[in-house]
């Protein structure tokens, strides 16, 4: 019995070691691709769940008057829609993409902590089951907005608030474990030669995002824990009657909440930075400035939180500081947009579906950025604050920003993942349908917001009727477009034209250059040499 033989046997076993069969494969898997797939499906289901609630909202707002739902139920819809979309749809989708892509991009066989990876995922279905179950409880689910300001969520919250708190804790634990895993993978599992400044931008932006997550998720956990003790154990963190401070809640919440919006957009920047060069057939312009811009955005994101609170009566000095810091963020964000545009400049561009979604992202995210700059100007923000102008702003950056980048990433990498090309015609229909619908949906919301319509109201005065009707029609069309997307996803997984290993003419990176389509169950059992 020589070492030689053992080696060969072990090696053979390794190569033929595929996924287990049946349902247990998914429950017990420690494979980054399987877990990535699970995350992506969870996020799709949550997108449809949160989307269904958005449809209820748009239905009630289709015309003035209370026709379909009661105000209390309406508030539950806006709250759950926000929570589900932020924590259920956007964040898990990016974690799913990270799981699939980070090991392949840095030349690793899997994530650094595969068993914890399994746990990070499987916490989430339970967290969302708990959150969703609150809707059926006496008194209804959370109805205080996804920002759950005290004291509306503490003294005045429904009984189900405790379940909401528990669900948020679970999501936080999942996020923190996922982030530490990603950090450990990126810092410690890179193939020889893969220096930090050679990493694809998606890996870079995720590394930065993971640091944002481990810094702010515990703050969110702290906030909900204080809520819990305020509700049941006699503390008064946020209760003015007991010497606490309701505004303190907002400071703590937004210390989490503002980096959170960058958590949802930084990986999107990484996706766009991968797609644009491929279809412009030209290297990304200003790679290192992109890395520095991402890091600056992340650092600044910790210093601007109170721009969500310009009407809470902060001291003027505080308002001035938060205004300056906030508008300063548009500098590194602008650098990113300029770099993408310059990457296209004098390229040789083609317009496959991923590129269409990426271009849609750049245009519409920038529109969201413009309204963001307007909102950052403190004195005028007092008039925009808590209106539909804000709703329009964050849906431009989250739907046509974050969500568009996720859809773009799907079209871009799905041929690599499955070995099948998606149907290009259907993809293009999906893009144009979504893009027209989403603008019909959200653009008029700028107008009603400026004209004076507050957000989170179940009914409105008659002067807002026309634009709300238009917006609702756009909403229904956008919802349908994503059902169509579901069809495209299933169709692509089931079959399609065989994808080449490189997939795209201009594709670069280890996942396209070193791995077949689809890649083996374990990507790189032998570390590739990165030149």
């Amino acid at each position, binding site marked *: 019995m020589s070492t030689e033989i053992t080696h060969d046997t072990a090696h053979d076993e390794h190569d033929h070691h595929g996924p287990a069969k049946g349902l247990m494969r998914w429950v017990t898997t420690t494979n980054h691709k399987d877990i990535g797939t699970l995350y992506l499906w969870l996020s799709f289901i949550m997108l449809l769940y949160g989307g269904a609630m958005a449809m209820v909202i748009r239905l009630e707002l289709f015309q003035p008057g209370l026709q379909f739902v009661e105000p209390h139920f309406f508030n539950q819809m806006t709250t759950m829609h926000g929570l589900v979309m932020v924590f259920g749809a956007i964040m898990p989708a990016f974690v799913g993409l990270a799981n699939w892509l980070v090991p392949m991009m840095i030349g690793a066989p899997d994530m650094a902590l595969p068993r914890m990876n399994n746990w990070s995922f499987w916490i989430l279905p339970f967290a969302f089951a708990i959150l969703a179950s609150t809707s059926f409880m006496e008194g209804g689910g959370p109805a205080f907005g996804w920002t759950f300001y005290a004291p509306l969520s503490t003294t005045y919250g429904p009984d189900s608030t405790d379940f909401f708190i528990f669900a948020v804790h679970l999501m936080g634990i999942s996020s923190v474990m996922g*982030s*530490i895993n990603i950090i*450990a993978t990126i*810092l410690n*599992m890179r193939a020889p030669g893969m220096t930090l400044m050679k990493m694809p931008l998606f890996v870079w932006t995720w590394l930065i995002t993971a640091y944002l997550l481990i*810094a702010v998720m515990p703050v969110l*956990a*702290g906030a909900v824990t204080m809520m819990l003790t305020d509700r049941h154990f006699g503390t008064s963190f946020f209760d003015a009657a007991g010497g606490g401070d309701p505004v*303190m809640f907002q400071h*703590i919440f937004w210390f989490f909440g503002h980096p959170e919006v960058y958590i949802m957009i930084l990986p999107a920047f990484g996706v766009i930075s991968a797609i644009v060069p491929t279809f412009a057939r030209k290297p990304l312009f200003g790679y290192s400035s992109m890395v520095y811009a991402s890091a600056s955005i992340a650092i600044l994101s910790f210093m601007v939180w109170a721009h969500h609170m310009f009407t809470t009566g902060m001291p003027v000095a505080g308002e001035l500081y938060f205004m300056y810091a906030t508008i300063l963020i548009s500098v590194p964000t602008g650098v990113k947009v300029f770099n993408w545009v310059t990457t296209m400049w004098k390229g040789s561009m083609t317009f496959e579906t991923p590129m269409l979604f990426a271009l849609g992202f750049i245009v519409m995210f920038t529109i969201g950025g413009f309204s963001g700059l307007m909102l950052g100007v403190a004195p005028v923000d007092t008039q925009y604050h808590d209106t539909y102008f804000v709703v329009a702003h964050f849906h431009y950056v989250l739907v046509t920003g974050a969500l568009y980048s996720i859809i773009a990433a799907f079209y871009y990498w799905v041929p690599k993942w499955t070995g099948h090309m998606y149907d290009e015609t259907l993809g293009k229909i999906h893009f144009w349908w979504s893009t027209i619908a989403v603008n019909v949906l959200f653009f008029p919301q700028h107008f009603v917001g400026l004209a004076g319509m507050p957000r989170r109201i179940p009914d409105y005065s008659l002067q807002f009727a026309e634009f709300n009707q238009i917006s609702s029609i756009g909403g229904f069309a956008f919802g349908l477009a994503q059902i169509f997307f579901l069809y495209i996803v299933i169709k692509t997984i089931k079959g399609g034209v065989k994808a080449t290993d490189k997939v795209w003419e201009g594709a670069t990176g280890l996942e396209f250059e070193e791995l077949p389509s689809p890649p083996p169950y374990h990507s790189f059992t032998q570390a590739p040499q990165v030149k």
Partner: protein
Amino acid sequence: MQQRQHDEDYFTSVERRRRTWRIVVAHVLIVVTFFVATFLWGKF
């Protein structure tokens, strides 16, 4: 035997595993610090 085989791998060397654990511990400490700091901020 297999264990020894793994030890020689680029990705599964003992040194690399130790480093993974050091990274995990360091980052868990960051998480705990921020969690506790939140309560201090809330004027516990």
